[in-house]
């Protein structure tokens, strides 16, 4: 073998070995950057799904403000869609590489708490001498504060003004009887119109929270007793019997069993249903998709004769701090910044949501007038979402969903279905 050939062979061996080494190191590196520092600065990570849902660059601008107010702390945003954020956080929690500050949904909190992945915010608040009296709510699990709702999205009743008027209904319904009358009248218009739309897809079973349990909460009811499942109580039974009645009357839009939230919005936007319970965050989408659609929002109807405070379902962009963060004090500063009166007002305005700080007021001057109306409904009622903080919340919704579908199809009675749902929920607890 010539010298050149030997050199070539040696070189290729080295290249192959280097490639292998690169792969090994590539696969074994990347254990998180929560201890990253640059030029003496502390860099903390904020993992969330909010950035893609906010106007371009809005969250980064807020972070720039935070960095200028807190020299020495840099914030790295890790943004993704809701579902992938959830999966990343679960993987991070398991591997101990969770980002320092994390965006949370109330439905995840209990499971993260069970893993010991979240820091006790009460301790961080105490260490920072923070007065929590301005916070609208905090989510506790086993006596430890694990999440603070930063902004809240409420779910009022949307009504198609034109369809209701055509059906002879002059005002949005405020009681169950009025709702049933309106739903029947709209369905009677024919031409593939339905009174109400109810999404019950097993893939995304949040219809149970937003469209089913909302009937319980709006009349001051509950699905829990001492923090444990109680879905066979009168409140839930009455709501499910009511929904079953609506189904038997044929006023629910067809395709309910596999319908998801986006399908529900589409049905309403296309003018095929008279009423839906939905997030305020979809107002812009509905306006853009069908500029001619005239619709109103109102509180979710309550049981006839109910005069108490109405619960209104909500979903939150919550925030928490990782238990494995090496910079808990700096992480808390970021949480404190987001919950401050000024920043929280700004963020809620940007997100078309309601603030988690009681002193913050969103600026509705450039928003759709319906947001102002919704804020009044929100202020008059009380935010209600009993799934927040429950273990395997999504699975609970799915289990209830399966029983509700069986009830609506007539395969089992309301009592039997709820009994099975209760047993299944108790099993999960």
């Amino acid at each position, binding site marked *: *073998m010539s010298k050149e050939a*030997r050199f070539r*062979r*040696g070189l*290729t*061996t080295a290249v*192959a*070995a280097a*490639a*292998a080494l690169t*792969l*090994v190191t590539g*696969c074994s590196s990347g254990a998180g950057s929560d201890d990253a520092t640059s030029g003496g600065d502390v860099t903390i990570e904020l993992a969330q799904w909010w950035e893609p849902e906010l106007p371009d660059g809005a969250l980064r601008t807020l972070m720039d403000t935070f960095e200028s107010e807190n020299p020495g702390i840099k914030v790295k945003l890790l943004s993704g869609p809701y579902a992938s954020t959830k*999966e990343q956080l*679960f993987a991070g929690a*398991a591997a101990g590489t969770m980002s320092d500050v994390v965006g949370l949904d109330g439905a995840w909190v209990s*499971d993260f708490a*069970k*893993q*010991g992945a979240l820091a006790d915010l009460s301790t961080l608040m105490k260490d920072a001498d923070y007065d929590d009296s301005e916070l609208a709510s905090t989510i506790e699990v086993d006596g430890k504060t694990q999440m603070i709702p930063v902004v809240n999205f409420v779910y009022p009743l949307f009504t198609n003004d034109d369809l209701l008027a055509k059906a002879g209904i002059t005002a949005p319904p405020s009681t169950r009887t009025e709702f049933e009358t309106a739903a029947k009248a709209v369905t009677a218009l024919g031409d*593939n119109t339905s009174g109400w739309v109810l999404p*019950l*897809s*097993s*893939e*995304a079973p949040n219809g149970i929270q937003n469209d089913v349990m909302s009937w319980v909460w709006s009349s001051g009811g509950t699905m829990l007793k001492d923090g444990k499942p109680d879905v066979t109580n009168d409140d839930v039974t009455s709501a499910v019997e009511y929904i079953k009645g609506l189904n038997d009357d044929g006023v629910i*839009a*067809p*395709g*309910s*069993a*596999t*319908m998801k939230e986006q*399908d529900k919005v589409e049905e309403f936007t296309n003018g*095929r249903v008279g009423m839906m319970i939905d997030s305020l965050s979809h107002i812009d989408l509905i306006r853009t998709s069908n500029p001619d659609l005239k619709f109103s929002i109102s509180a979710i109807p309550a049981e006839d004769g109910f005069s108490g405070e109405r619960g209104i379902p909500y979903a939150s962009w919550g925030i928490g701090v990782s238990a494995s963060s090496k910079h808990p004090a700096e992480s808390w500063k970021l949480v404190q910044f987001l919950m401050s009166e000024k920043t929280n007002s700004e963020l809620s305005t940007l997100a078309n949501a309601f603030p988690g700080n009681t002193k913050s007021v969103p600026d509705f001057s450039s928003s759709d007038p319906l947001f102002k109306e919704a804020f009044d409904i929100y202020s008059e009622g009380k935010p209600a979402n009993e799934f927040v903080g429950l273990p*395997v919340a*999504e*699975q609970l919704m*799915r289990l209830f*969903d*399966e029983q509700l*579908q*069986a009830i609506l*199809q007539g*395969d089992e009675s309301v009592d039997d279905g709820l009994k099975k749902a209760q047993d299944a929920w108790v099993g*999960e607890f």
Partner: protein
Amino acid sequence: MASTNTVVRPVSTKRSTPRWAPTARKLTPYAFLSPTVIVMLVLMLIPVIMVIGYSFMDNVITNKFPVFVGLDNYVEVLSDPVFRTATGNTLFFTLVSVAAHLLLGLGFAMLLNSPLVGNVTKALFRVVYILPWLFTVAIIAVLWRLMLNPNGVINYILISLGLTDKGIEWLSSPDTALLAVTFINIWAGYSFYMVTLLAGLQGVPADLYEAARVDGASAFQRFWNVTLPQLKPIIISMSVLDIIWTSQQFALIWMTTGGGPVNVTEMLSTYTYKLAFSRYEFSVASASAVLILLLTMVLAFFYVRHQKARD
């Protein structure tokens, strides 16, 4: 003229080979193989071993200190009625899909290979028939969800033709949901068979058909005694692969029905996913995944044996 004393030394014909050279030579192929081997180890073998290990623990990931529980997770999965429903649904979905893929694929391939059809028509049909294969699962799911919607185009056609008086809830009714997702899967997958079988048909020697014709064989006899035996190796390979792929179908089911309504379209894949990412019972999900792996390995065994027999 100045002269220089030049000493010419004989060049040794024997090269001085370093002692490590033979070892390096032996190691070179392994060095080249090592990236692939490492990737296979890291991305396949290690995860499989980890999942098998998880399936014997009480609960991993969400439990910081999992303990060994033996076969408890397997007992839980096998005694779960939903698992049995999912197994039955997967069996129906897979067998019907594979049979229909084969029949449709073979039928269309023979149509495109027929001398009775003009070249322009053939080219046009080739494009039309292969279209479903070009769409991603997400597109297919959205497309069919829209078409099968109670207010969708399929129901519009049926109502217009007077075949039904109101929209059928194809994906939402327990009576039709499994058939509907199976139909969508058939639509999405027959093209692959068609393309492969068409290639196989074009490779069948014309002499065989001529000889059969001379012997007086009818069209059906030529198909049965010439075409099918010639395509048999392709058909068997494709069918085994299709059974493996279809039994693992997840995205299409998840994006169309999510396993509902009331478990009627629950498959082994969606059942396992829900255990892991909805109930966070990663150990039970691992047990379910290992059971699926065992079923798949049985099929893979037959596939490999068939391939070896061919070689």
